[in-house]
């Protein structure tokens, strides 16, 4: 048992080292590098919070950009009226509250019907905001002046991303996590073993909506101008899923890696070939899916599985 304890200790140290490394980077790199890190942290936060609902319970959500949008709008409404970390918290709370409000009826629907229902809900939210802005406010967008500088935004996003990962990590190892995973495997069997599946799904949806609210609020400051079309963009919901599956939703660090690698690859080609980078990315994605069907972590799984079978056969 000692080797795995040592292993745990080492990876714990490594993790701490990584966090310190992330805290120090912004002071030694150009604003551009910090903005790339900002992108990565945004996607890590969004995919990791998406995993809490869709990765754990199997209810694939195609509407997470709605939570992002609500966070952005709450920030825009409260900007300069309250200290900005408090607004981020309020934005996160409001997007969670909305998730709780619609949670029950929506989570009764299952399978692809749930997937497309969430897409419909996020489009519905977008047009509600558009009509509210147009008819009541008389404008379509809002400006946020005097926004904090990029490094402050970087650190708030770093905190949000770390809290998201920690939250997902704790849930996964907790009783709540076991409940969610049983729902994913077989909801009726889970129900018959004493799991109140509707409450568990409902809680997972709420928690999963909390973090995109916070990220939306922070990124609203980054954009300084937000309008419903850009913050409720359905393509963001698709990109979240692509990153999560790309990283492999089985393991916790799958989406973290998926977000890092996919953002960096697209950044690299985006900077080199402004006209062709999307075609190159599309082709790379097709190749990667063909070679590693279960996502980037597929390579680790292959080694991992081989190890387990050998252990089992040896004991026999």
């Amino acid at each position, binding site marked *: 048992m000692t080797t795995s304890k040592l292993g745990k200790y080492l990876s714990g140290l490594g*993790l701490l080292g990584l966090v310190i490394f992330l805290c120090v980077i912004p002071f030694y790199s150009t604003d*551009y*590098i910090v903005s790339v890190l900002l992108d990565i942290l945004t996607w890590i936060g969004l995919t990791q919070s998406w995993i809490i609902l869709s990765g754990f319970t199997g209810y694939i959500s195609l509407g997470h950009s709605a939570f992002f949008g609500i966070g952005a709008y709450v920030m825009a409404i409260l900007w300069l009226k309250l200290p900005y970390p408090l607004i981020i918290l309020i934005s996160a709370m409001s997007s969670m509250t909305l998730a709780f409000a619609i949670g029950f009826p929506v989570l009764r629907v299952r399978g692809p019907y749930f997937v497309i229902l969430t897409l419909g809900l996020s489009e519905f939210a977008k047009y509600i905001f*558009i009509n509210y802005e147009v008819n009541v406010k008389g404008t379509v967008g809002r400006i946020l002046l005097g926004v904090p500088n990029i490094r402050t935004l970087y650190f708030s996003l770093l905190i949000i991303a770390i809290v998201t990962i920690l939250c997902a990590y704790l849930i996964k190892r907790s009783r709540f996590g076991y409940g969610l995973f049983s729902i994913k495997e077989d909801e009726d069997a889970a129900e018959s073993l004493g799991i109140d599946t509707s409450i568990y799904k409902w809680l997972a949806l709420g928690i999963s909506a909390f973090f995109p609210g916070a990220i939306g609020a922070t990124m609203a400051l980054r954009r300084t*101008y937000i309008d419903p079309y850009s913050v409720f963009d359905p393509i963001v919901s698709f990109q979240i899923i692509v990153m999560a599956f790309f990283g492999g939703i089985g393991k916790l*660090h799958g989406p973290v890696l998926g977000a890092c690698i996919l953002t960096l690859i697209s950044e*690299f080609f985006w900077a080199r070939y*402004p006209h062709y980078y999307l075609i190159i990315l599309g082709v790379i994605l097709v190749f990667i899916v063909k070679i590693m069907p279960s996502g980037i972590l597929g390579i680790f799984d292959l080694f991992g599985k081989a190890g387990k079978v050998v252990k089992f056969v040896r004991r026999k």
Partner: protein
Amino acid sequence: MMKKFLLLVIGVFLIIFCLNGGALAKDNIRIGFSMALTGPFAPAAKGQMDAYLLWEELVNKNGGILVKEFGRRLPVKLVYYDDKSEAETAVKVYEKLITDDKVDLLFAPNSTTIHFAVFPIAEKYKAPIVGNTAASVKLRDLKSKYFWFVTATMADRQMRALVDLLISLKVKTVAVVNIQDIFPRENLEFLIPYLKGGGFEIVLQKDYPRGIRDMVTVLSEAKGKNPDAFIALSTPPDTFLTAAQIQEVGFNPKFFFQLIGAAAVAFGPRLGAATEGISTFGHWSPKAPWPGAKAFLDNYVAKFKVIPDYLNSTLAYVSCQIIEQAVERAGTLNWEKLSEVIAKEEFPTINGPIRFTGSENLQTPAMVLQWQKGEIEIIWPSEVATAKPLYPKPPWPKK
């Protein structure tokens, strides 16, 4: 498993540092900007991009820009990235241009949204940016020494010009439709009070969402009201749809105004003779008496085989001319000095002389244009008009 993960993540972060480019010796002027090559703004951005490319070619043809500081003409090189019509990507682009590529000068991005997002960059790095394809009254609140915008068609001035024209044409009843988008909605905000102030009767007022696929129901309702003037505060996709379906419904208003898109490249060929009498907004025409206006049209057509967008292409080209002359007058690429020159001086451009008051161009009047015999003429205000307003608009040609 965790150890493998940590190794890979640290390795991944090291790749980042290979992203930044190296610095270059001073043998050209590198001008950086972000452009919507993909995403919803891409169609409108094309006219602006081509204007930049045309300007680069023409400037380099006569040796580049004379910079006294280096004692010779320096050729220009455009450095640009795709901002995917996203505000945060555009912000990242300008941070990359300034802190990573370390470009000498900056040009403006496309669309009002992105201008707003990029404004704090100009402020933070004290980098002068002459905005072009942005038009919102809120731009005036951006008090900055490093950010200007060339467009004269602010919603209030534009709608004032339109209503004054309607008064002069003795129009009585008006129908208004608008798309739920930034600039059109802002124009509506000023149009309605001006119309009420001018004693007009608004017989119909409706808005519609982006991506609308059918205008027939609204247009036949408007036809039922039989207004003298029909004002559609629209954007390119719905401008084309309305122009087609208004003929289907057989609605023949005496005055027909479409906001954005009626001066677009594809509008003329798409409607052919039906364009006769359709008016739109703008502030340029090749027939205007400004130096280089006709030459700009000819050079553009020679290079791209299509006429320029009377709005985006001209605004973009004007902003390039201003920066070019500012560099020559200031004799240096130093941002501080350039900002002073841009803020104070008057610059002759293909859109007439422009001098900024604050960050706005109040010199160029907001105008109303109209299609007459296949050409776009300026019909209002009368002092710069290149043709008399055609009122009432001839009915749609029979198919």
